[in-house]
Structures are given as C-alpha cells and as structure tokens.
C-alpha cells in the first residue's frame, strides 16, 4: 500500500518542483530585477565603476578617518556572518564588553553607547545609534582635517541620516556604511582628504 503511493508521490513532487522551485523564483527574480533592480541586486555602493560594498552590510572600519560600525562577532565577514551567541552570565562576553568599553573611552573620551559595546546579531549590522555617530564625529573630523564649516556639515549629515532612517517606525539610527561612503564622495569632506 505504501509502495503503491510512491510513483504518484514522485510525479506530484516533480510538477510541484517545476512550479515552486523553477517558475516561482524565476517570476520573482524577473519582476524584482525589473521593478527594484538596485535593491534586488544587494543595494551595492559603486564608486568609479568599482563595487565598494553594500549600503546594507557593515564593513570593518579601523581608520580614524571613518565612523566605526557596531562590534561584530564574525569580524565583519560577508560570507559566514554571525553572532557571539553568548549568554548573560558569560565571562567571555563580560571580558569582550570591558575591552570595547576601554577602547571607546580611550578613543573618544566619553562613555560608550550601549550599541558599541555589544556585538550585533548578523555581524553585519550597518546601523549605529545617533548617539554613537555624534560621539565619533570629532575624531573623524580631526583625522580628515575638516574646517569648522565642514565639521558643521558633517554633524548635519549625521542628523539628516538619522531623521531619514527613523521614519514612522524603528529606532533612530545612522547607516554607518552610507555615511562613510558620503565622506569619500562628497567634495565637502573629500576635499580635505589631501590635508588628512
């Protein structure tokens, strides 16, 4: 009785696979490439014809010329991203947080915002809190030798990014990859590069 159902199962599985495994993703791919080509292709950042990352995926920013992203348990790897999965009483987590706190206080001379102490879920969180972005602005401006006008423009850009991202839902946040890309492309910040 069981064996009698096998041929029917295989036929059914075949046609369902054609419909759901081939036709369905093909239709979705075609439609999204047609309507939202930039987003369907990973919201890539392209500069001078070269792909410099995606505005959705964090990168490792170590230079003081850039705003830092949130800590990443997978060291910002694009492939093989992940979290620490450490629990509340983990000594390893406590040690990592203490090290991040010390590094932040040394680098920025201010108490660290919570999002810069704890690693993200994806390891690729592109956003930081408004507080964390504003706290980093002084160091970035110094490293890029920005004048007072450019410094004011930088703060304005940060606030504009946070206001744009917040919208009606979700916490206020600043996309650190887009912000850093702006630093590299906007003449107001890029011009100072020669001096920095």
């Amino acid at each position, binding site marked *: *009785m*069981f*064996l009698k*159902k*096998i041929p*029917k199962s295989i036929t059914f*599985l075949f046609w*369902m*696979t054609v419909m*759901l*495994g*081939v036709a*369905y*993703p093909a*239709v*979705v*791919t075609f*439609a*999204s490439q047609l309507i939202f080509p930039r*987003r*369907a*292709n*990973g*919201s890539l950042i392209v500069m001078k014809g070269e*792909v*410099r*990352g*995606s505005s*959705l*995926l964090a*990168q490792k920013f*170590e230079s003081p010329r*850039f705003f830092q992203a949130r800590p990443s348990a997978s060291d910002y*790897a*694009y*492939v*093989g*991203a*992940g*979290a620490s*999965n*450490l*629990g509340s*009483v*983990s000594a390893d*987590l406590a040690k990592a947080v203490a090290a991040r706190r010390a590094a932040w206080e040394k680098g920025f001379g201010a108490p660290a915002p*919570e*999002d810069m*102490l*704890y690693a*993200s*879920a*994806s*390891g690729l969180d592109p956003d*930081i809190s408004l507080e964390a972005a504003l706290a980093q602005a002084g160091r970035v401006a110094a490293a890029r030798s920005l004048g007072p006008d450019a410094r004011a423009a930088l703060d304005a850009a940060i606030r504009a990014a946070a206001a744009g*991202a917040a*919208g009606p*839902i*979700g916490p206020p*946040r600043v996309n650190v990859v887009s912000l850093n890309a702006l630093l590299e492309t906007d003449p107001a910040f890029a011009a100072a590069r020669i001096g920095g």
Partner: protein
Amino acid sequence: MGWKDYAIALLAFSGASVALLFLILVGQGHLPLNPQRFKGMRWDLALNTAVSFVTNTNWQAYSGEVALSYFSQSVGLAVQNFLSAAAGMAVAVAVVRGIAHRRGEGGGETLGIGNFWVDMTRSVLYVLLPLSLVLALVLASQGVAQSLSAYVPAVSLEGKGELLPMGPAASQAAIKHLGTNGGGFFGPNSSHPFENPTPLSNIVEMIAQILIPFAFPLLYGRMVGKRRQGRVVFAVMLALLAIGVWACVGSEIKWGTLEGKETRFGKSDSALFAVLTTITSCGAVNAMHDSLSPLAGMVPLINIMLGEVVFGGVGSGLYGMLALVIITVFIAGLMVGRSPEYLGKKIESREIQLAMLAIIAPNFLILAFSALAVSLPVGLVSLANRGPHGLSEILYAYSSGAGNNGSAFGGLAANTLFYNLTLATDMAIGRFGVMVPMLAIAGSLAAKSLVAPNAGTFKTDNATFGTLLLFVVIIIAGLTHFPALTLGPILDHFLMTMGAAL
C-alpha cells in the same frame, strides 16, 4: 480517502521528498546554479537538513551563504518550504473533516476525510503561492536580495577585497515566513540585512508568519459549522500569546542587552519577533535567542514546549491543539461524571489514547534526547556557554526539533554526527508522531454517529471550557518541563542577578 490511505499518502510523499532533497544536497556539486562551486553536503548534515525541511522544522546546522548553491536553496529547500506547509494544512483540514463528518446527514456514508493530493494542491495554489508572490516583491522592495548572479567582488572603503554574497533570497524568505518554516537563506536568518533590511520588512515578516496560523482556528469553526467552537480555541491561543509577549518583552527591556540584536530592531521588536516566531512554529530569528536575557529566552522555549499549539505552525498548530481539546473534554467528562462528548461525537478510549500519544511523543523526545546529550561527551562538546545556559542550549535544540520550530540557541555547534542524527530523529517523530495519531482520531470520529445534545451535555464553546483548555495546556507542559526549566533558564536568571560570570 480513509484515514489510513491519507496517512500513507502523506508518509510516502514525505519519504520521497526527503530522498529527493537529500540527493540534491549531497549532489549539488554536479548540479547547475552553483556559481560559488560549493561541494555536496556531508551525508549526516544532508539527512538532517532534508528531514528538517520536509518536517517544516527548518533547523539549520549549516550556514546558507557558506554551504549551499542557488539550486539547493530554490529547487531543493524552498520547494519543501511550500510542500511541508501544505502538508500541515492538508492534515489539519483532514482532521477537522473527521470531526465534522455527519454520518447519514448529507455527509454520505463514506468515511473519507479528504484527498491528500487535492488538499496539497489547493493549499499551494490557492493560499501559499499567491501570498508568497506578493510578499516576495514587498520584501525585494525593502532591499532583500533577489538575484542569480555570482557573489560580487567588492573592495571595502578601507581597501580590503572580499566577496559579497548574493542569491534569490526574497522568493525564499517570503514562503519561509508564510509557511512558518523559518529556514534562513543566509546564516544569520532574519537578522541578516539582506533578509530583513528595514523595520518595515520586519513587521511584514512578523505578520506573514502569524497570518495563516491565526486563520486556522477560525477556519475550524467554519468547517464544523459552529463558529463559536473556533473562537474559543482562538481565544485560548490569544491568551497564551499575550502572556508570552508580556513576559518576553518585559524581561528583555528590564534585563536585556544589545548583544545579538540589530540596531534597526532594538530590544522590544527583537523580543516580540522571538515570541511570534516560537508561538507559530516558524523559527526564523531577527535576534539571537541564545543572547536574550535568561527569562526572555525561556519564553520562546516554553512556547515550543507547550507543543507549538499557541497558533502553532500552519495547520499543525490546529491539529496539535485539537489533541489537547480532546484531553480537556475527557477531563471535563470525568469532573461532571458523564461520558465525554465533543461536537456530538462520543470520545472513547481509542481517541484518548491517540491524543495522549500525540502529546506524549514530542515531550518524551525533548526530555529523553536532552538527558542523553548532557550525559555524553559528544553532546557536551558542542556547547558555547557553560553552566545552566549550556543546559538551555541543549533543551532548546531538542524542543525546537520535536516542536518542528527550527529556531536555536545558536551557540550550540550542531553540525556533528551526534546532533545531526539525534535531531533528525527528533524532528521526524515530532512531526509524524503527531500527524498520524491525529489522522487516526479523525478516521475514528468520522465513523461515529451523532449523539443528540441534551441538558447534561458539557458545552465546549464557552468561557468555562476555554479556561479549562488553557489550564490543561499549561499544566501538561508545566508538569513535564518545569524541573528542567528550573535547572536551565531559571537558575541562569538568578546567577545573572547575582552578577555571576561563568
């Protein structure tokens, strides 16, 4: 089809699905749409993954962008996302037909509970596919990737070269939520910005995963012709959901940190998602459950241990709850001293035994496998956290498998021979060990004649019955799992408040 025929079709089809998926995963190196030239999966991981997707669990001991070709994802896994969801819906409506069947009252004399192939086709064509098409495009509009191109070579702003992952993620993410499957296209699941890029996509994903499970108790009321019966079940589920949201969001705001969470979701949206993904048997995650504060992490665990009946998986939540309804009717019958009846059908020892089997099977698996894992070095070596939190990781894994949820305390390194095989067994029995007894109950009830209601009939569509059902759900899970929970998350909580570091 009679119930046996229906169950055999289900098992034959599921067997064929496991075989096909296993072959695709093992042989992906020789198959098309593999731009990164991934090799085939190791046999135990492929078996685990095949069983996982066919049972609507979507437990993942691999990381999608590291290990799977686009062919394996779209033609292999996503197809089972649809079909395992459809199988849950098919079995649910078959079980309800058995309960609703009116012998000789226009329902005919045949004892059929439906045709498996027709139910499968309808579930896919009328419900899952149209909704998925719309949802996939909504997700793509938010930035979920949908492309068949190879991984893109990129140079970071600081000048480091790296490959940027790509793939048909939107089409798969859509059905992953609608079908309460939960298997992520990328390793970090719905916390990955390519799989859940904005607060809006997050809300859409949450709605998608509760949509069909919310509809099922109401569908039940319509199918038995007494809408109040469905509403009582719905109300009990909603009450349990409300308790879960309050406990999880509350403790995460009080004790939680941003470890394992994304900035765009924050603490409350992460905790809310954790509840919704575990009351339904979805199992997608937008924050790492392993890093939730202990009590907040216990809520998803309890949701699964309740048997995935607080709305539950598509279809499976309803038939799981109906097992508990039958037990409640039995207990009510004992209390008022009458032979139990449900919707005009006598509930006799055969139905009670089958319902108990459907309830005991997953619960037994959770405790037995957890006990085995904590007693063996091969079980303990996979732990990421020491102390009670380590026990929570193991308990969560086998609960997630037996409840066909698929979320994890992800620190557990589950890609080992021991975990792949024990969890595959856990998932298979947790699925079919509930489906088959429930189909048998349907067959048995379909054959029964109606008993005319009289003054002594215990009503099952009012608040009294709802309250009784609520407590039966809580007491069965509580008696089974409270001892283990005290040694895991509860002890973990007290260690945290004491400031311990393990």
